[in-house]
């Protein structure tokens, strides 16, 4: 139980306290997460001054 609870905490801590090199699988994961945020977050949600609309989420409808 303790181990199960500590894994997400450890993952979060490792993402925050970043010590991985470039071109590692951890780096790839972080890049994917960042690109997903940048491209999938609707500009309207962020109040983007230069872009508008719902972005790719709007295509789902």
């Amino acid at each position, binding site marked *: 139980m303790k181990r199960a609870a500590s894994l997400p905490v450890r993952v979060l801590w490792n993402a*925050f306290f970043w010590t991985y090199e470039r*071109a590692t699988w951890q780096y790839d994961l972080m890049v994917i997460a*960042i690109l997903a*945020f940048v*491209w999938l*977050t609707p500009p309207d949600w962020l109040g*983007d*001054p*230069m*872009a508008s609309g719902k972005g790719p989420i709007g295509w789902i409808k």
Partner: protein
Amino acid sequence: MTFTGLIGRVCMFPLQLIISGCVALRIHPNILTFVGVLINVAAAWALGLGKFMTAGLIMVVANIFDFIDGKVAHELNAVSAFGGFWDSVIDRFSDISLFIGLIYLYSRLDRTDYVMVTALAMMFAIMTSYTRARAESLISKCKVGFMERPERIVLFMIGAFTNRMAAVLWVILILSIFTVADRIIYTYRALRDTREVLA
């Protein structure tokens, strides 16, 4: 191989050709560094005018210069302490000019919120470099934290080419805050461990 490693390898082919060209022409690396900042100022100008696609293209050219100066210095046997110092200083000017371009743009659009987001992102981007430089005057190495200059530059290009600069600024801001915090924590621990060994 990881996909970021693959992208790095693919990008190295054209860059290696440019590096070879500069070495053949014996262009001094400090000149390449300086040309890089001038081109970055042009990119900042385009950002300020809201011409993101143009800014993205100019940034690609500017950062080729930024990237190759060290490699050219190495191949020309022109690596020097001043070259390293010059490169670091000029890089800060390049960084700041891009942020100023965006601050100008958002001011023109009367978007105080994004003026603040950009200004804070600029502050933490500068602090990212400063914390490492200051830490490495006390400990041997302080290379922790995700959001370093190459990541920032690539994100700026992605934001410019895909018109998602607001999201990019949020990512740069949040991850730069984490990076500065990482470097402070790392330096604190390293200095504490050194003190304990000496005691």
